[in-house]
């Protein structure tokens, strides 16, 4: 019963920006997936990126995580340009920024136990005695609500929600300052989704970590973010405080997204009409 996700004490966000993104462009051949995106992410802030398929939201996340390289524009992570290829640069970037995917199954070694996978980034980033590492792994698993038995399990023995907890534990291992979450709760059952959302909310409250939360789900974005960008066709069409954006959307596309969410008195035909109106430029 914490209240919604924006529970950070005021003043906890601030300081030099963690991420400064300016004029970001990504082209795949002749297709422009991201078309001039700018934003900054402050320490402790939770920023949502909202959009549908093809909006470019996932491409932005993948560029920030170093999985794609931008065609143009700059990304500064803690003031330094992202994209260094040396081992030192990559370690530095990974120590500051980690990513969580929709289904983390593909990012776990299927033959290693969950605890071993969580220990891996520690081995890379903080070489030290194995005993200390084991203690930190136990602490991390506990932080995300996984017990010792589940730590000893293989990824396939875990449910979707437990696997997402394991992914969060592994991402937190290096104490990053930013977590990029790409549709991180989209594949989960409602009751499990609520557990992960409250976990993420609590983690931010406790550690002051910043989130870049990419999602198509406005209600989830409302719960977890302070401010948000709405993307369409690679561009940001509206930005603002999440609560304001949802209460008084200014761009017709944001309004359409809101109207599309089923609720009491929902009229799918009105939504369809609004969509057709937008599709004709």
């Amino acid at each position, binding site marked *: *019963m*914490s*209240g*919604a*996700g924006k529970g950070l004490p005021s003043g906890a966000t601030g300081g030099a920006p963690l991420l400064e993104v300016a004029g970001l462009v990504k082209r795949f051949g002749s297709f422009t997936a991201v078309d001039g995106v700018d934003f900054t992410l402050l320490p402790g802030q939770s920023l949502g990126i909202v959009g*549908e*398929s093809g909006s470019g939201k996932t491409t932005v996340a993948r560029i920030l995580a170093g999985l794609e390289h931008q065609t143009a524009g700059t990304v500064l992570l803690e003031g330094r340009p992202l994209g260094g290829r040396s081992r030192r640069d990559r370690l530095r970037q990974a120590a500051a920024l980690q990513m969580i995917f929709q289904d983390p199954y593909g990012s776990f070694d299927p033959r290693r136990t969950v605890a071993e996978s969580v220990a891996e980034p520690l081995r890379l980033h903080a070489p030290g005695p194995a005993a200390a590492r084991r203690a930190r792994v136990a602490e991390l698993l506990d932080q995300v609500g996984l017990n010792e038995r589940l730590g000893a399990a293989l990824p396939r023995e875990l*449910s979707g*929600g437990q696997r997402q907890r394991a992914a969060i534990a592994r991402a937190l291992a290096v104490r990053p300052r930013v977590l990029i979450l790409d549709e991180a709760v989209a594949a989960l*059952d*409602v*009751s*499990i*989704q*609520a*557990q992960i*959302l*409250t976990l993420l909310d609590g983690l931010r409250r406790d550690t002051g970590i910043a989130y870049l939360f990419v999602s*198509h*789900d*406005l*209600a*989830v974005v*409302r*719960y977890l973010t302070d401010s948000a960008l709405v993307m369409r066709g690679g561009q940001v069409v509206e930005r603002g405080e999440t609560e304001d954006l*949802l209460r008084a959307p200014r761009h017709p596309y944001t309004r*359409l*997204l*809101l*109207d*599309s*969410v*089923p*609720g*009491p008195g*929902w009229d*799918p*035909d009105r*939504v*369809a009409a609004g*969509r057709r109106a937008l599709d004709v430029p």
Partner: protein
Amino acid sequence: MKVLEKRAKDTTDGTAADALDIRGLGLSLGPVPLLADVTVRVARGETVGLVGESGSGKSLTARSALGMLPRGARATGRVTVAGRDVLGAGRAALRDVRRHRAAMVFQDPRSAINPVRRVGDHLTEGLRARGVPAKAARSRAADLLAQVGIRDPRGALRRYPHEFSGGMLQRVMIAGALAAEPDLLLADEPTTALDVTTQAEVVGLLRRLQAERGTGMLFVTHDLDLAAAICDRIYVMYAGRIVEEAPGAALFAEPAHPYTRALLEASPSLHGRAEIRAIKGAPRALAEAPSGCAFRDRCPRAVEECAAGVPETRSHGLSAVACLRPGKEAA
């Protein structure tokens, strides 16, 4: 016109039965129980929601209407579609149900259509099997595509599934499902794989076509908000059983079962309250459920009696609920 003729015929041969009538359906695979005592009714022209999380048995229940049971499963109880028995049906009778009485729209249209055959072949296949001449079948298929809002329907018949977007392909699947003018439309998470704005279009289309034709629709979804927005009645499933049945709006205003209430409180909302309350534990399948009430190990209102036996369904407000302590009064 065709719809009217068909309805008239139905009343004359005395089959004004419900589009779907599932009574006391139990399903087990060897020693593993999958469904227990599931009762679901869909009247003609009615939209009924079947809501639940993974493992609740909602898809199994919907599939039973087509006689699609897991291989080797043993079924008890009764399933009828437009008055025709499905569970005891022989091959010919089952084929009749699947061809003329009930049709299904699946979650992912791409995995439900043959990717190397033209859309026209997919749509005319059922009609041709019923003996409609090729030319008439093509023109009927084009009509159907026009009805579901596909531009240039004649041209679309010659195209392949990969040439359509997800939302457009789902329209094609709906056209295919309606080709047989079924009494019952089964929609299994038909919009889950689609973008939110596309979801509204597809749902609007389903509702409109269903209302025009008087088809009964069973709408299977994990999305309570969506179900409440479009369904006349909703069944909530948990661990292979129906735990609550209520009119769509009432389920939201006055959820009777603690599980329904917990699901609502766990869903982030766009309006009003911003907080959510997580349910401890994970959803169960019937085989893993505790004795008595399957929800009791996660239920904030559970008491000792909940372990004694599976609660009988009783009425509470506008709901029929399988719970000893329904309602919202503090425990």
